[in-house]
Each structure stands twice: as structure tokens, then as C-alpha cells.
């Protein structure tokens, strides 16, 4: 899965970096490697591992009248029965099924276009498509909410010039979902395109020449050379996008606050509401753990489906 140096043949990636020969040196600085990783491990333990463990403990507690009570799996039982949690899951699922494939298809098309020698000024385009990724999440959320404002937004003003009625971008449940999808696509397509492009550049030109000799047209070459060559990068972008979507928080929080009427409520937003609006940290922790399990499961499935043949 690393996009390391170009392999000899397009189909198979190196299994991993060649093992750094180090056997003879094993005895000498035995402690050194551990010392080198120690800061990272310490930081991880303090800022990640400890909260992860603590939040699991929290998820087994409920606070009643200022005191902690151990309630076992109660929070998880409540979760299974919580319509809002299922709404959040469904919303997230819709984005996963609709927005992620569209975005990845777009990213693939972009990658192919940016790789093409027919395109002049490629670096400028590459930079241009990648730049949204560098924009702060909250900043671009606010910009989108201004652009998409129903009464004073630029988008509706432009539509108005064409004679269209104002679109309730953020205030109608269906349009709010579409707006959220648009914002996500704008922000992440370039990023995915760059990953795909990097991989694309490792596909040897000879394969295309061979395909041409065999009589494949542009489409045929895309199907039989480009796509198989992209497979590992497609897997990577799919997994990253899936995890990102499941943890989605900033965009709906800034754009719609999860509304209207929970149409854009994501698991992340729901978790935040329970923790920081209702002070229900036990329940919020249970939501977090349910989310973790989901991310793990989906990642596993995707590796199985897409990863096996690489």
C-alpha cells in the first residue's frame, strides 16, 4: 500500500520496503531504537491511549445527581434503541454510498487528466485541485455557509441571474444533504486525485504501448491498464474516505449544525451534542466506541474486497 518507487511491473507493488539489513548491529545499541521511539510512544500513551481507555470506562457509567454509577452495558443498550443514533448512522451511510463513490470517480478522472501530457500547465492545475485540502475545515465551512445562504448567498444570486428561484441550500433537509456532499467533494476530491495521480505515475508506459498494439482503444486501456494499476491507491482512498466520512464532524457542525431536523446529523455531531451540550459523557463515550467498531468493520471489509488481489 505504500506508493513507493515504481515497481518493475505495473501489477504488483513491492511487499514493503526491503528489510534494512541490521542483523550484525543487533547487539550494539539495543536500547537505542527504543529510546528513539520513546517520545512518540509516551505522547501516544498520554494523549491517545489514556483517553481511549478512560472513555471506555466512562461508557460504562452514568452520572445521576452528580455521582458516578456503574451501569454496565446500559449505555450500549440505550444506543441500540436510540432513533437519533440510527438517524445519524443512516445519514452517514447515505454519504458513504452516494458521495464517496462519486468523489472517487471524479478524483480518478482528474488524476487521469492531470497525468495526461496533452494538458499544459499541469503543476498549476495539480496545485489548484489540491489547495482546498489545505483550507481549514471551519474556514471553508463558513465560506460555504455564506455562499449557500438562501437570501444573500452568491450561489443563489447567480442562479437568480439565470432566472431560477432561490434554492434552500442549507435550510431544506434534502438540499442540506446535497450541500454537505458538495462541500465534502470540493474539499477532498483534489486530495484523493493527488494520491491516485502518484500511483498512476508508477504505471509503466510500456503497458499502454502493449495495450495499443493489442488493439485497445482509450477506454480499453483505461479499463485494462489504468484501473488495475490504480487498485492499491483506490483501496487507500476508499478506506481513508470511509473513515473520514464515519468521523465527519466539522462540516455539518459549521454548515448546518446537524439540521434541519437532523437531516445532516452525523455520528460525530451526535456525540458532541451528548457530551458538550447535555453533559452526558458516559453515553457520548458509548457512541464513540460504537463508531470505532464500525470503522474497524468497514475497513476490514474493504480490505477483503479490494485488497486481496494486490
Amino acid at each position, binding site marked *: 500500500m505504500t506508493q513507493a518507487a515504481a515497481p518493475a511491473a505495473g501489477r504488483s507493488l513491492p511487499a514493503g520496503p526491503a528489510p534494512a539489513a541490521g542483523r550484525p548491529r543487533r547487539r550494539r545499541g539495543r536500547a537505542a531504537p527504543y529510546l528513539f521511539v520513546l517520545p512518540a510512544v509516551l505522547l501516544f500513551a498520554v494523549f491517545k491511549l489514556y483517553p481511549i481507555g*478512560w*472513555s471506555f470506562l*466512562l461508557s460504562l*457509567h*452514568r*452520572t*445521576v*445527581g*452528580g455521582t*458516578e454509577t456503574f451501569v454496565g452495558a446500559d449505555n450500549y443498550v440505550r444506543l441500540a*434503541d*436510540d*432513533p*437519533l443514533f440510527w438517524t445519524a448512522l443512516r445519514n452517514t451511510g447515505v454519504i458513504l454510498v452516494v458521495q464517496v463513490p462519486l468523489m472517487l470517480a471524479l478524483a480518478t478522472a482528474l488524476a487521469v487528466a492531470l497525468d495526461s501530457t496533452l494538458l499544459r500547465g499541469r503543476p498549476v492545475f495539480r496545485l489548484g485541485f489540491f489547495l482546498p485540502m489545505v483550507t481549514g475545515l471551519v474556514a471553508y465551512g463558513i465560506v460555504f*455557509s455564506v455562499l449557500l*445562504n*438562501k*437570501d*444573500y448567498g452568491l450561489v443563489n444570486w447567480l442562479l437568480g441571474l439565470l432566472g431560477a428561484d432561490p434554492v*434552500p441550500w*442549507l*435550510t*431544506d*433537509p434534502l438540499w*442540506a444533504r446535497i450541500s454537505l456532499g458538495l462541500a465534502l467533494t470540493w474539499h477532498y476530491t483534489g486530495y484523493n486525485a493527488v494520491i491516485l495521480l502518484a500511483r498512476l505515475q508508477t504505471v509503466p508506459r510500456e503497458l499502454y504501448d502493449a495495450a495499443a498494439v493489442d488493439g485497445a482503444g482509450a477506454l480499453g486501456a483505461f479499463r485494462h491498464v489504468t484501473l488495475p494499476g490504480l487498485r492499491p491507491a483506490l483501496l487507500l482512498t476508499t478506506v481513508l474516505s470511509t473513515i473520514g466520512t464515519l468521523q465527519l464532524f466539522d462540516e455539518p457542525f459549521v454548515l*448546518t*449544525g446537524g*439540521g*434541519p*431536523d*437532523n437531516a445532516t446529523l452525523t455520528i460525530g455531531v451526535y456525540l458532541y*451534542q451528548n*457530551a*458538550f*451540550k*447535555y*453533559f*452526558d*459523557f*458516559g*453515553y457520548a463515550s458509548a457512541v464513540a466506541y460504537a463508531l470505532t467498531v464500525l470503522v474497524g468493520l468497514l475497513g476490514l471489509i474493504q480490505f477483503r474486497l479490494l485488497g486481496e488481489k494486490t
Partner: protein
Amino acid sequence: MTDRQPARRHILRMGGGALGGALALALTGCSGSGGGTGGGAAGDPRKGSITVWSWQGPAAELKALIPEFNKTYPDIRVTVEDIGNPAIWDKITAGLAAGGQGLADVLHIGVDYLPGYVEHFPGAFADLAPLGATAHKDAFAPGLWGTVSPDGKKVNALPWEANSAGFYYRADLFERAGVDVDALQTWDETIEAGKRLKAKTGVHLLGIDKPASQPDAANFFQMLLQLQGAFYFDLEGRITLDSPEAVRAMTLIKTMNDAGLVSDLAGGWNALMSSLKRGTAAVLPWPTWFGGIIEEQVPAEAGKWKVRLPPAVRRGGPTAATVNSTHLAVAGSSRNQAAAWSFVEFALTRPASQVRIYRGKGIAPALLKAYEDPVFHQPSAFFSGQRKGEVFLDALKAPSPAVNYTSDYARALKLVTDAQSKVLLGGADPAKVLTEAARELARQTGRKAAR
């Protein structure tokens, strides 16, 4: 204005069933009491350095008060920080969650947040009773004391502003439509007048944040409820979201919306301000403090605006309701509690301070003695020569039933705004969505329904 105490009731009781201060636990091992106040006051009442958190207008007024304060207390250094609203609530929550770390010494807190903080974060606020707060018990509208001191012993905060439901309107527009606003007795009549207004002037009757981009989207609904003496919870903390009063209030909103009288304030505060400047709605059903905002935002419209108390929901019913109040609390974690208290006392119990603040930003004091000042009884040029201060003072003196916010107010509010969005955006049936909301609230909180 008067030595008699207005009969205004605003008793706040804390409901049980809290989901609470797990936060202390959540963040670090440093959990704990949030500074525990015990009995004695921390620090010197005449010396120290204190920080005050407030927002926008009130923050500016507190800042302006510092030079005067320093004449009496030259050795207390006061820094007022404008945290912004609603940002201040998250900031206070985070501070309390960290056991009081990083909190200011004096905190400006709304009535909707006070019970939640007190219940979820024991020790969050210093008990002001040992510092001398009890001496001022009768200085405020008596109902407010129940808000800051639910058990009558511990005093969590001191009341600052007391806001009554109001009805600000563009008199010139209604005049053009041939409507006598003073004669409107009920909201039903107001809706009919709104139809005429819309036909004649094209202006909406009022505005609501239909997709509920901010929680205060339910302010109007809540006011209609309180005008009927109802709320989300009863005094025992049981759920009353689906009461006949609530259905009636939501049905009124639906009727207005279906008649095309409600402009959309999607986007919250900014949308409200631009609607005000563009004149898209003729009525602003906002409480006392909003008058100052109107004067500030559209100074050129002086003489076009008027104010009255809102019409009744049912003919002959109440037209006065205390819809919210704000308070100053001293953080339990403060090292300078005594100095912080000196500032709170100076700002809130001294009529001259409150009169000054009222002159500045129109913030209505809970301190009764302040109303003796002529400023509350002068005609206002902006509001067409009306005595605006007296309009609201009448409301303050009218009986207003107890309101129980409980520690689950935030959950209730979210469910109410969702229900309202369903009605306004999807044309849902008020009774149906409110019943669902009540059931969901019961499921989330373990509270019982009143019916």
C-alpha cells in the same frame, strides 16, 4: 420607580435526574471539586486581580463600569473579556469540566444554563451567602431569588437582568395597512392583521429561524408557551412538551407560516440582524433587552418603531411573562472570590451602576431600586415618544408563573426546535410532532410525562 415589590415570579427549581458532572472525570485525574468554596471567602475583598467573562453589550457595559469601581476599590484590577454569545457557554463548560481550570473569576450566566451547571458540576460556583449576598435578597424581584438560590441557603449567583416578553413593531407599516396595533388582544387577531399587512405592504408579520440553525429558534414558541403559564417541564420536573398549551402555541406558529406571514431567519443572529436592517418583518417578538439592539442597528428608523406587550394567546389571558434573566456568578475555582464578590456587588446591587448600564445598552435590571431613576420613565424618541421603560416595568410587576428549566433544558430545547422545523419546513402536525418529542425526551432523560 416604586418601593413596592413587583409581583413577578420566576422560580426556578432544579429537576432531578441529572446526567452529570462526568466531565470532571472525563478529562483528567485532576477532577475534583472545582475549587470547593467551603464557607470562608478566598482572598481579600479589597485587593486582587480578577477577570470577568461576559458577551457583547453587557461586556462593554461592565468594562465601562471599571473606573467607577476603582474609585471605591483602587486595589482590585478588573479585566472584562468579551467571550461572545453563544461561545461563552462552551467555554464555561470546558472550564468547569477541567475542574475550574482557566475559568474567569466572575461569570455571566443565563437562566437557561445556570441550573445545568449547578447540577452537573457540583462546586462550580462559589456560595455567595457567606460573602454577604443574603443581605440583598429583597433587593431583587422576589421571584429571581428562587432562581439563584433554589434551596434558600446557598446562593449560586446574583441576578442582573430580568427580561419580559415584548412586542416591538414598525408602527409606520401597520399604519399603512390600516391596523390599530394597540387594539390587538390575541394572537389570532394579530394573524388576521398580519394578513392585511402582508397584502398591503408585502412585509412579513415576523421571522423565525425555520431550520433552527441556532437553539434560540424556539424563542417565539417558548414565549407563546410562557404567555399561557406553561413550559417544557412542570414544577415537579415532569415533561409537558405535549401539553394542550404547547400544541396551541405550535398551531399558532403553523397558522402564521401557512399564511405566508413568517420570514425565514435561517442562520441565527446574523440573519436576524440583516432582516432587521432590511425591514423584512414588521414585528420583533423579543424581550426587553432587544429594544437596545433595534436602536443601535437602525438608528435612522427613529420614530417608526413602537413597543407593547405581546397579545394574549387566549382572549383575556396574560400578556406578561418573564422570559429570561441573566446572572453573575463567582467561580468556585477563583482564588480571589472576595474581590470578585466586591465587583459583583458593586455592579448589581448599586442602583447607579444598573441605571448606567440601562442607559448604555437598555439592559433591564432585576434590581428594583434602580427603577426609581427617571430614565425608566422618560419618553423615548426612538420609540415614538413611548415610555418604553414603563411598558416593561408593568410586565415585571404582573404575575408571571414559575418556570422550571431543569438540568435537561438543552435536550428539551433541541427536541422542540426539531419539532418546530418539521412543522415549518414540512408542514407536520403540531400535536403529532410534540407528542413524539415528549416521548423522546422521556426516553433520553428517564423523566416522566405529566400526562
